[in-house]
């Protein structure tokens, strides 16, 4: 997973869990039942695991540009000469 993907993963997991938990908290407060908040939180965590943990392709759209290895570099310089 590239660096942009990792940044995205961190933001995504925080937003998903906080959002589901907050919505569940408000509904739970209205209904005076904490289990609504708990189940909403659980859905948020499971969703975060599905979206953020596996190495999905959309997390690899900015591949790291490595410099050439030394033998490769020497080969290229020889070609250009």
């Amino acid at each position, binding site marked *: 997973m590239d660096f942009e993907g990792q940044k995205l*993963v961190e933001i995504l997991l925080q937003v998903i*869990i906080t959002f589901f938990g907050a919505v569940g*908290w408000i509904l739970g*407060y209205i*209904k*005076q*039942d*904490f289990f609504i908040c708990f189940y909403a*939180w659980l859905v948020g965590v499971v969703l975060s695991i599905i979206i953020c943990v596996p190495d999905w392709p959309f997390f690899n759209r900015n591949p790291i540009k490595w410099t050439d290895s030394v033998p490769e570099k020497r080969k290229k310089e020889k070609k250009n000469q």
Partner: protein
Amino acid sequence: MYTVWVRLNTVVSFGFSSLFGFACLAALSKVGHSLYRQPVISTLELNKLRSLKSHGGVDRALLSLDLNADMDPAFHWNIKQLFVYIVASYETEENPVNQVVLWDSIVENVDENKLLQQNNVFVKYALVDPGDALRGKDITLSLHWDHMPLTGFMFQGHQDLQTASQFTLPNEYQ
């Protein structure tokens, strides 16, 4: 965040931290609840005194009670259950305050019916004095309960003692 395990660890630990935050907020949201919502105790009184004897060197009274108390107002989303108990209190020459638990019950938030209704129920635990001081005493019956929250500390509530009923034990053993 460069391996599956690091990301899994981050998701789970952020998850639990946020759950802790939500639980604390829920507890804070109900801090003053018992100031304006109290259980309604319609009846708590003696039904029948069965016996008052000296038992193994100590006074023991066996009796039955009537109870009608609606515990529903004490509940909110941060209460798991209430431990409700009936206290008999009296004064002796030796001690100004003597308190004995006669009966108890657990009322859970998941119970549909939170009304405690006991007609002519025999006491679970006898009214026993450490000595021989029960004869002729005035006994006050009051309802007490422990709130057991989902998140937070346990705290007590009790009946307004001005509404508590009283009865007097006979002067002779019977």
